[in-house]
């Protein structure tokens, strides 16, 4: 990997985007979107995470191996969350005889 050094301007722009998204998520939280309030909050959080990871943590200049390892980690986190919720989120849906 040849080291890539981003400009201060890039970092400041990313920071401004992060601050804007923080203000946005706080403002949107008071708007009644019903169940989509959670979706909006998490979508904004994921955007902020990507900004921090790609720019501040230099993932966009990382080696292919590092990117692969990170993608693998997201898969494992997905398994943790998805499989657990397939249980807890669907309990009682089918109706158990005798209860």
């Amino acid at each position, binding site marked *: *990997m*040849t*080291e890539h*050094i*981003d400009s*201060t301007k890039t*970092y*400041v722009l990313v*920071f401004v985007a*992060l*601050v804007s998204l*923080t*203000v946005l*998520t*706080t403002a949107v*939280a*008071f*708007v*009644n*979107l*019903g169940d989509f*309030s*959670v979706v909006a*909050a*998490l979508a*904004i*959080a994921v955007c*902020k*995470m990507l900004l*921090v*990871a790609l*720019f*501040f*943590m230099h993932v966009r200049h*990382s*080696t292919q*191996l*590092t990117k692969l*390892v*990170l993608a693998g*980690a997201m898969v*494992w*986190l997905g398994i*943790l*969350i998805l499989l*657990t*919720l397939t249980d*807890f*989120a669907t309990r009682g849906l089918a109706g158990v005889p005798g209860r």
Partner: protein
Amino acid sequence: MASHTRTETLALREQFDTEAQQKDASTLGMWIFLITEIMFFGGLFLAYTVYRRWYADIFAVTSSSLNVYIGAANTLVLLSSSLTMVLAVRAAQLGKRKALVVFLILTLLLGGVFLGVKAYEWNQKYVEHHIPGPDFHFEGVAQQGPAQLFFSLYFAMTGLHALHMVIGAGLLIVLIALAAKGRFSASYMTPVDVVGLYWHFVDIVWIFLFPLLYLIDRHLGR
């Protein structure tokens, strides 16, 4: 390895072929560690999600008792500390020793402000009897159990996050001392780089904690 006659440097240890290879190995190693941290915090986020579904009404009331403006302001403080941290890493990459020390100190100060605000919030919980235990009392809900559960998760998650911040602050103090002594250069700044990764990771955890703990039930107006 008889052919090895080169002298070892911090930037190029004997077991590596090139400086770039050593740097990549360090970065990858740090990421592997951070992934174990992702899985660890992931379990807590999952527990929170499950209980929030289970006791949706009570979690909505308890979560809305947190002060959203303090939470948002603290988010901005932490994001600022990430900016100063990345600028510190940049200064290290360019071999600018003075700028490196200044940005590391700024990061440490902002981290201290975050922890101070957090301590104030926790003290508010103490005053309001919102700390789980025998003195716990939450006005206006019939079931105190689930309300305690929310605050148990709140303290577990923000507490572990704060612990990571304290560890990060300790690492920063070490870095500041080393940087002031001129231990880092453009060719060797791996410790600054990996502590930067750690600091940003802790920032990302808060990026998810803030909306999930403070925000998602605000629209219900309770």
